[in-house]
C-alpha cells in the first residue's frame, strides 16, 4: 500500500507538465478546479473589500466616508461580485470540478473542453466586471430593479449586465457537464443509491443552474436592450411593468440561492459522517431532499416581491410555498444531527466548519420563515433583518461549507496537510467574527434600520459598531487559510491517500491523484459511507 512516499518521485496531475500553457490550455478537471480556485479567491477579496468599505461607512450615523451615490455603488458591486463571481461558482467549480469525476470513478468530466470554456467565460466576464468597476461601477443594487436601472441610473448598467450574462453561461455549462457526467459516467456497480451525497447535491444544483440561469440571461438581455434602444418594456410611464422585470429576475435569483447553498450541504454531508465515524443517518432522505430543494426552490420567487405590488392572492400562494421549501432543508439538518448522535466525534477543522454550518444555516433558514410570513415581511423587508438572514445562509452557511470542504479535501488536492491548530484557530475566528458582524443586524432590522442607506439614526450606532468590529475579525479569519494553504504547499506535512479515514472513491487514489484519477477503473461493491468497515486513522492529524 502507499506509504508517505516523496511525491516528487511519483507523477501526478500537478507535476505532470509544467508551464503556463499546460495550465491555460489544460482539460484536466483537477487543474481547471485550481484555476477556478485562484479566480474566485481573487473575486472574494474584491467583494470583501467592498464589504469593508460599507462597514467602515456604517461605523458612524452620518454619511461621512463616501457620497450617497458612491455608497450605492459599494453595495451593488459587493453583491454582484460576491454572488456571481464568488458564491455561484465556488463549490461547484472548485470542489465539484475536482471531485465529481473521482467520486463517480471516471477519468474526467463528460466534456473537458467545455469545462475549460466555462472557466474562460468566467474570466472574460470577470475582466469585464472589473473594467466596469474601475470605470465607475453600477449603482442599481445587484437586483437591477427597473426602471431605475433601465432609465434613470447614470452608471454602467449595460456593461455589468453583459458581464453577468457571460458569467451565467459559465454556470450553465458547468451544470450541463455535471449532469451528463453523473448520468453517464459512473463506474461499474456505482448505482444512484451508492453515490456520495456530495454528488446528489451537485446534481440538484446543476438542475437549477440549467433551468434557471437562462431566464436571468434573457432578463439581463432585455434590460440591456431597453437601456440601449430606449424601449419601454419595463417603463411604467410607457405601459411597461417593473414587476415583470422582478418576476423574471427572481425566477432565477431565488433558485440561485439554492445554487449557493446546496453544494455546501453536500460538503457537510461528507464531513459529518467522516468525523463522527458513522454512516449518514437517512441517506435517501438527504438525497431526495436535495432534489426537493431544487424543485421547490423554483416555486417561491415572488416572496421577494410581497410589498412590490403583486396581487394579494399570488402573495398568499408564494407565502405558503415558501414555508414548504423550508421542509427539505430541515430534513437535512435533522439527519446530520442524527448522524452525530452516538458517533465518535473528532473536532478537526473541517468538522468545526461543518458544525458551524449547521448552527448558522439553521438560524438563517428559520429567519427566512419570518420573512415568508406576509405580516412580518411588511415590517422587516428591505431592512437589515433581510441582510442578516441571507448572510447567515450565504456566509454562515455556504462560505463555511466551502472552507470546510477546502480543508477536508486539501490533502487530496495538494498532497499536503494544512497546519491543524491554525485551521482550528481560523475556524473559530471566522465563527466569532461572523456572529459579531451579523447577529446585531437582525436586531437592527427589527428595530427598523433600512438596508442600502448610507446614513442612519444615531440610536442604531452601537449595533453598527459591533457589526463593523466583527467584520474585521471575520476578515482575519478569511485571510489566515489563504496564507497557510499556500504555506502548506511547500512546507506542509506530506499527506497519504486517506489521512481522514474517509469513505468515497476519491480517497482510494493517491494524494495528489494521477492525471487520469485512478490507476485502474474501480468497481464499486459497497454502500456509501461504510464507516463501520473503515478504521479511523491511527493518528488524528495534528498540525
Amino acid at each position, binding site marked *: 500500500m502507499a506509504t508517505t512516499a516523496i511525491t516528487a518521485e511519483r507523477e501526478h496531475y500537478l507535476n505532470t507538465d509544467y508551464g503556463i500553457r499546460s495550465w491555460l490550455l489544460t482539460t484536466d478537471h483537477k487543474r481547471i478546479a485550481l484555476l477556478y480556485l485562484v479566480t474566485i479567491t481573487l473575486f472574494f477579496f474584491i467583494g470583501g473589500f467592498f464589504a469593508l468599505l460599507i462597514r467602515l461607512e456604517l461605523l458612524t450615523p452620518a454619511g461621512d466616508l463616501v457620497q450617497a451615490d458612491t455608497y450605492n455603488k459599494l453595495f451593488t458591486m459587493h453583491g454582484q461580485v460576491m454572488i456571481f463571481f464568488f458564491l455561484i461558482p465556488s463549490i461547484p467549480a472548485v470542489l465539484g470540478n475536482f471531485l465529481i469525476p473521482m467520486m463517480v470513478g471516471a477519468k474526467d468530466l463528460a466534456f473537458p473542453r467545455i469545462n475549460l470554456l466555462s472557466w474562460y467565460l468566467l474570466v472574460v466576464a470577470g475582466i469585464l466586471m472589473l473594467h466596469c468597476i474601475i470605470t465607475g461601477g453600477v449603482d442599481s443594487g445587484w437586483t437591477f430593479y427597473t426602471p431605475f436601472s433601465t432609465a434613470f441610473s447614470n452608471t454602467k448598467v449595460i456593461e455589468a449586465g453583459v458581464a453577468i450574462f457571460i458569467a451565467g453561461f459559465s454556470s450553465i455549462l458547468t451544470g450541463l457537464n455535471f449532469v451528463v457526467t453523473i448520468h453517464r459516467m459512473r463506474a461499474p456497480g456505482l448505482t444512484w443509491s451508492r453515490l456520495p451525497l456530495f454528488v446528489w447535491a451537485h446534481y440538484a444544483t446543476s438542475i437549477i443552474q440549467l*433551468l434557471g440561469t437562462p431566464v436571468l440571461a434573457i432578463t439581463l438581455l432585455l434590460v440591456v436592450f431597453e437601456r440601449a434602444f430606449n424601449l419601454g418594456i419595463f417603463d411604467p410611464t410607457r405601459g411597461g411593468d417593473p*414587476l415583470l422585470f422582478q*418576476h423574471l429576475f427572481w425566477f432565477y435569483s431565488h433558485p440561485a440561492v439554492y445554487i449557493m447553498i446546496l453544494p455546501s450541504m453536500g460538503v457537510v454531508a461528507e464531513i459529518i459522517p467522516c468525523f463522527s465515524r458513522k454512516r449518514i443517518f437517512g441517506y435517501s432522505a438527504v438525497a431526495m431532499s436535495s432534489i426537493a430543494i431544487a424543485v421547490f426552490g*423554483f*416555486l417561491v*420567487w415572488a416572496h421577494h416581491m410581497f410589498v412590490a405590488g403583486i396581487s394579494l*392572492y*399570488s402573495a398568499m*400562494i408564494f407565502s405558503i410555498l415558501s414555508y414548504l421549501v423550508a421542509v427539505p432543508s430541515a430534513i437535512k439538518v435533522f439527519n446530520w444531527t442524527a448522524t452525530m448522535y452516538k458517533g465518535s466525534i473528532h473536532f478537526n477543522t473541517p468538522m468545526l466548519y461543518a458544525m458551524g454550518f449547521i448552527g448558522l444555516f439553521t438560524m438563517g433558514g428559520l429567519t427566512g420563515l419570518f420573512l415568508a410570513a406576509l405580516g412580518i415581511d411588511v415590517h422587516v423587508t428591505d431592512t437589515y433583518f433581510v441582510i442578516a438572514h441571507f448572510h447567515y445562509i450565504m456566509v454562515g452557511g455556504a462560505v463555511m461549507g466551502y472552507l470546510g470542504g477546502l480543508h477536508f479535501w486539501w490533502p487530496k488536492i495538494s498532497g499536503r496537510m494544512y497546519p491543524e491548530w491554525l485551521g482550528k484557530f481560523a475556524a473559530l475566528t471566522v465563527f466569532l467574527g461572523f456572529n459579531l458582524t451579523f447577529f446585531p443586524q437582525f436586531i437592527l432590522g427589527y428595530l427598523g434600520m433600512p438596508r442600502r442607506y448610507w446614513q442612519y439614526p444615531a440610536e442604531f450606532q452601537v449595533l453598527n459598531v459591533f457589526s463593523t468590529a466583527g467584520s474585521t475579525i471575520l476578515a482575519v479569519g478569511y485571510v489566515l487559510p489563504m496564507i497557510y494553504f499556500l504555506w502548506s504547499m511547500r512546507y506542509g506535512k506530506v499527506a497519504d491517500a486517506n489521512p481522514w479515514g474517509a469513505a468515497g472513491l476519491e480517497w482510494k487514489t493517491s494524494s495528489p491523484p494521477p492525471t487520469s484519477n485512478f490507476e485502474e477503473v474501480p468497481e464499486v461493491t459497497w454502500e456509501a459511507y461504510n464507516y463501520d468497515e473503515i478504521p479511523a486513522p491511527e493518528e488524528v492529524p495534528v498540525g
Partner: protein
Amino acid sequence: MSEHIVSSKIYYTIWIILLVLTIVTAQVAKINLGPFNPILALVIATTKALLVVLFFMHVKYTSEKLTKMVIVSALFWLLLLLFLSLADYTTRGIGHA
C-alpha cells in the same frame, strides 16, 4: 441515441403533414371563432412541434427514458414560469391588493 433508422417515407409523410398544418393554421386564423382562435392556433402549433420532436428528433424511436424526462422537465419548468407569473397578473384587479 437510438441507431434505429427511420424510413424516408415517414419523414416525407411528416413533412407533408407539417406543411398542411401550416396552411391550415394561417387560413383558420381568418375565420372568426371567438376565443377559440388562439386556442386552435396553439393546438396546431403544439401538434407540429410534437411531430418534429417525435419523428425528426427521433424521440419516438429512442429507448432512452432520460431524453423524454429532460423534455418533459423543461416544458414543466417553462409552464411554471408562465403560469405562476400570470397568477399574479390575472388576480391583480381583485379586491384590495
